[in-house]
C-alpha cells in the first residue's frame, strides 16, 4: 500500500513545486537577479533599506490603484496615466494658489477628483465599447489624453485658464514651465511622524496611508459593489444574467482606479519635490504595471501582496542594477538599459503567459467537451 502511495505522493509534491515555480516564475527570476546584483553593487544594507522604504512609500499607492480594474476583469489599467495627469493638473493649480505643505497635498487631492472622475468615466465608456481589448484601448486612450493634457497645459493655462504665478508660467505669458517646483510641499507627508531606526528613515504617515488604502481595498472586496466587480470579472454574461449592471460596474471600477491613481501621483510627486510638467506621467503606468507583474500578479489576478513584493523587487533591481552593471561591464549605462529592458520585458512575458493560459484553458474545455460528447455517443450505442 505504502509502496503505491509513495510515488503518487512524491508526484503530487513534484506537481505542486512545478506549478508553484510556473506561477511565480517572474518573482523568482527577480529574486535571483537581485541576489546576484546586490553583492556586486556594493551598497550597504542601511542604504538599500532606506531606498526601498522611500520607494515603497512613493509608489505603493499608485500600484494599489491597479487592483480594482483587475478585480473587475479589465486587466492592467494603462489608463491610470489619466489619473496621474489629473493629479498633476491639481498640483499645478495648488502651486499657483500657493497652498503649501499638507494642506496643499489635501487640496490637490480634492481638486484632482473631478478631473479623475471625468477622465475615468470617459475611459470606462470607451473600454465598454472595446470589451476584451481593454488594455490596448486604455493604452491608446492614455496617449490621446496626453495630447489633450499638453494642449491644456501648454496653451490654455495662462491664456484661458487663469494662472497668476510667474514662477510656474512661461515668460511668454501662457503655458506652464517644464518643471514646477513643489519644494514647499516636498516630503511634507513623509517627514510628518517619520521614525528613524538606526540609519533608516521610516515615513510612518505615508506607510499608514498605504495600510489604510489596503484595508479599504479589502473592505471594498466584501461590499456589494466589490462582489459585483468580482462576478463581472469572472464572467460578464453570468453577471448580467444575475442582474448586475455590467457596464456600470466596469465604469465605476475604472473611475475608482483613476481617482486613486490621481491621489497616488500626488503622493509620488510630494516625495520627489518637483513636477516635470510634460513627462512625469508618461512612464508611470508602465513602471507601476511592471512592478505589479514582478510581484507575481497576472492580467486577471492580483493581490495586495503582489503590490508590496513587486515594489520591493522591482525597485531593488532599479537601485542595484546601474552599479552592478558598472562593476560587471565598467559602464553604468548597461544597468540603466537593463532596467528599462526588464520593465518592458516583464510586461511582454506577462501578456504572453496570460494569452497562453487562456488558450490552454480554452483547449482544455474543448477537450472535455469532446470527451463528454464521445461518452454520450458511446452510452447511446
Amino acid at each position: 500500500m505504502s509502496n503505491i502511495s509513495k510515488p503518487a505522493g512524491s508526484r503530487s509534491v513534484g506537481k505542486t513545486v512545478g506549478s508553484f515555480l510556473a506561477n511565480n516564475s517572474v518573482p523568482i527570476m527577480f529574486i535571483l537577479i537581485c541576489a546576484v546584483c546586490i553583492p556586486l553593487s556594493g551598497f550597504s544594507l542601511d542604504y538599500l533599506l532606506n531606498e526601498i522604504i522611500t520607494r515603497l512609500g512613493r509608489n505603493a499607492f499608485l500600484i494599489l490603484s491597479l487592483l480594482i480594474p483587475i478585480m473587475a476583469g479589465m486587466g492592467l489599467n494603462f489608463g491610470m496615466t489619466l489619473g496621474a495627469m489629473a493629479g498633476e493638473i491639481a498640483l499645478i493649480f495648488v502651486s499657483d494658489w500657493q497652498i503649501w505643505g499638507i494642506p496643499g497635498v489635501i487640496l490637490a487631492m480634492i481638486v484632482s477628483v473631478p478631473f479623475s472622475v471625468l477622465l475615468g468615466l470617459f475611459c470606462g465608456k470607451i473600454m465598454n465599447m472595446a470589451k476584451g481589448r481593454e488594455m490596448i484601448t486604455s493604452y491608446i486612450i492614455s496617449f490621446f489624453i496626453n495630447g489633450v493634457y499638453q494642449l491644456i497645459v501648454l496653451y490654455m493655462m495662462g491664456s484661458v485658464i487663469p494662472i497668476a504665478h510667474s514662477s510656474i508660467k512661461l515668460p511668454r505669458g501662457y503655458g506652464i514651465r517644464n518643471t514646477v517646483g513643489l519644494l514647499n510641499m516636498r516630503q511634507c507627508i513623509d517627514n510628518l511622524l517619520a521614525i528613524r531606526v538606526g540609519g533608516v528613515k521610516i515615513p510612518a504617515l505615508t506607510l499608514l496611508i498605504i495600510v489604510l488604502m489596503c484595508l479599504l481595498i479589502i473592505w471594498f472586496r466584501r461590499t456589494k459593489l466589490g462582489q459585483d466587480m468580482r462576478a463581472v470579472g469572472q464572467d460578464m454574461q453570468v453577471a448580467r444574467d444575475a442582474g448586475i449592471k455590467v457596464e456600470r460596474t466596469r465604469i465605476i471600477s475604472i473611475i475608482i482606479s483613476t481617482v486613486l491613481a490621481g491621489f497616488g501621483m500626488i503622493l509620488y510627486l510630494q516625495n520627489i519635490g518637483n513636477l516635470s510638467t510634460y513627462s512625469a506621467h508618461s512612464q508611470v503606468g508602465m513602471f507601476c504595471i511592471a512592478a505589479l507583474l514582478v510581484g507575481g500578479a497576472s492580467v486577471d489576478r492580483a493581490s495586495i501582496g503582489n503590490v508590496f513584493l513587486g515594489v520591493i523587487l522591482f525597485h531593488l533591481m532599479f537601485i542595484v542594477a546601474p552599479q552592478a552593471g558598472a562593476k560587471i561591464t565598467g559602464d553604468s549605462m548597461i544597468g540603466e538599459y537593463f532596467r528599462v529592458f526588464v520593465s518592458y520585458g516583464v510586461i511582454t512575458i506577462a501578456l504572453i503567459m496570460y494569452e497562453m493560459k487562456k488558450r490552454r484553458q480554452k483547449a482544455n474545455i474543448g477537450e472535455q467537451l469532446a470527451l463528454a460528447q464521445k461518452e454520450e455517443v458511446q452510452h447511446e450505442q
Partner: protein
Amino acid sequence: MNNKRKWIIRGCSLLVILAIAALMFLVGRGHTVYIDNKTLEFNGQTADALQRVEVWVGGERLSKLAKRERTMSTVIGQNFEMKLISTINKGDEPTEEIVKISLPYGWDGIVVNVPGYLAGLPQEAWMTEFIAEPEPVTAEDEPELSEDEIPMGDF
C-alpha cells in the same frame, strides 16, 4: 424616500469635502517673509537701521542681521511670529521682543522692515509686498518643442 435620503447623504458629503477644501485654502496659504534691517523713511520720519538684530523663528535662530542686511523665512497660514534680539547702537544692551504679525492673504512675498516696526511706524510703512523680478528663462524652463511646437517626446 430612500432615494431622497441617498441624495441628501451625497449632498452633505460634497459639502463636507468643499468645506475641507476651503479650510485648506485658508490654513495652507504660504508666504515668504523677508526681514529687513534697513533704514526706513516714511512721511518725513526716519527709522535708522539697527546695529545688529538676531531673528528667531520657531525656536531657531534664522539669522543675525547687520545694517542693510536681509533674511527670509517661509510660513504657512496668516500668522507669523518671530523673536527679535536687537542692539540699536554699538555697545547697547540687546533688547528682546516677540513680534506677531497678521499677514495679508493675497501677498506671496512680504517685506517686514524691523527698524520701522520697532520705531512704531504705521503698518503700511514697515510691511510691504515683495514683488520679485521675472526670472530669466533658461533652456530648461522651456518645454522641449518639436518643429510644429507640440511636445512629442513620448511618441
